[in-house]
């Protein structure tokens, strides 16, 4: 009797130990999963914040490009007496062109953007479009700096076309802009 009792007691102890171990394992697994999810959420939040920040930088930087275009147009269409200003603005545009590729190199996940996926799927064409823009800005800068009035008009037009050429392929049309949300 005492022998069988002792065996049962041992079995009980083993079962109890096993269940304790299983419980601990399960808890450990849960804890690891919980920690991992916290880490993933935190990493996503960090990445998303970085994406949002990068996107906002791009948008602000491109607004600066637009502002230069608008200011330069304002001088030309109203014949404002501001010698050297058109060349200066054109020079700023050529400088800005050198920032665009680096600013767009990282593909971001934010949805509040008008940047099209084609930027990253056709990076070479995007770089070529930027190069066209830079060359057009420099041509206008040269024409304006040398007061070559016959060349300024076509150069301005070519610059506007280079903006449009890039936006046509790489920026969402107004109808699809995130600003309409």
């Amino acid at each position: 009797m005492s022998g069988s009792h002792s065996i049962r007691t041992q079995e009980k102890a083993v079962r109890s130990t096993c269940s304790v171990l299983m419980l601990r394992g399960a808890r450990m697994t849960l804890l690891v999963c919980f920690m991992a999810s916290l880490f993933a959420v935190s990493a996503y939040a960090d990445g998303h914040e970085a994406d949002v920040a990068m996107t906002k930088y791009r948008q602000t930087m491109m607004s600066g490009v637009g502002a230069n275009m608008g200011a330069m147009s304002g001088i030309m269409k109203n014949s404002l007496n501001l010698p050297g200003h058109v060349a200066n603005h054109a020079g700023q545009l050529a400088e800005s062109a050198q920032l665009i590729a680096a600013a767009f190199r990282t593909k971001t996940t934010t949805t509040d953007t008008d940047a099209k996926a084609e930027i990253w799927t056709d990076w070479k064409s995007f770089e070529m479009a930027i190069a066209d823009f830079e060359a057009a800005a420099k041509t206008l800068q040269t024409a304006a700096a040398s007061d070559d009035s016959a060349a300024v008009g076509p150069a301005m037009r070519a610059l506007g076309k280079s903006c449009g050429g890039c936006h046509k392929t790489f920026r969402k049309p107004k109808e699809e802009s995130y600003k309409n949300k």
Partner: protein
Amino acid sequence: MSLFALHNRPLRRSRSGQRIGLGLGTNLLANLVPSFALTLLIALPIVAGEKEGEHIFRATGGCSCHTNYPGEGETAPMLAGGRPLETPFGVYYSTNITPDLETGIGDWSDADFIRAMREGLSPEGSHYFPVFPYTAFSGLTDPDLRDMRQYLTSMRAIRRENRPPDALFPFSWRATIAGWKWLNFTPLVIETNPKKSTAWNRGRYLVEAAAHCGECHTPRTLSGGLNRFLWLAGSKDGPEGERAPNITPHKETGIGTWTRADLVWYLETGIKPDGDDTQGLMSEVIEHGYSALPRSDLEAIAEYIRAIPAIKNKL
């Protein structure tokens, strides 16, 4: 003259088939008379009206819908048609208006051309789909239409068959257009308004007839006619599925904050007051058309547009 003068950007590529015919006919003479005299003999009767024709051609936006830039890029065969034009009724394809004798309009007379532009009828009498804006072109004068045909016949002839529309019955059926015309089409008559300035009158002619601004910038009724109560107040169903903005002088929803200089500059360059560029069909009609108009025409357009009633219509 405008910043990008008309004559600085010659569009003509070569003589048409008709011209070649004339040239062949005079080859024998070439051995008999000095070349300059021959040039005069041939050129004088043919070139008359071409320059004026280019002027009105540019004022229509360079007939950009007839070149398939979106599908074939910058090297698309000019004016050879085949461009898909999306409408709420289906997809229609622009036609070949080069002087090709078989697939273009090379065998048309002045009367054929005027009838097409005024009445929307082919030389055989069939109705054109109103995606071709004869509703506006009907207001063009006879001399302008004759000159425009003259200019078109100077373009390079390109052989390209016209394509039927991808539209469901009854919108694919030309006979339906007779009913559409009965409902929606009254030929445009533009009479000079003596109470307004010469520039305003010229601007009205250009905006309403030649540049046919209302065809895109005015919303349409259920039957596809223009909703005159919202004249130039913008359309969500603009050309090729694009949104055509409100261009009335309404300050919040239109272009009421634009100055005359802003408008003239925009039509010359496609650059908006905020420095942004223009996309879509508008960028094409500026590039191939309006940007080459004389400054006086652009100022006339600006004067007229700024004087139309401001309509609140947010798209």
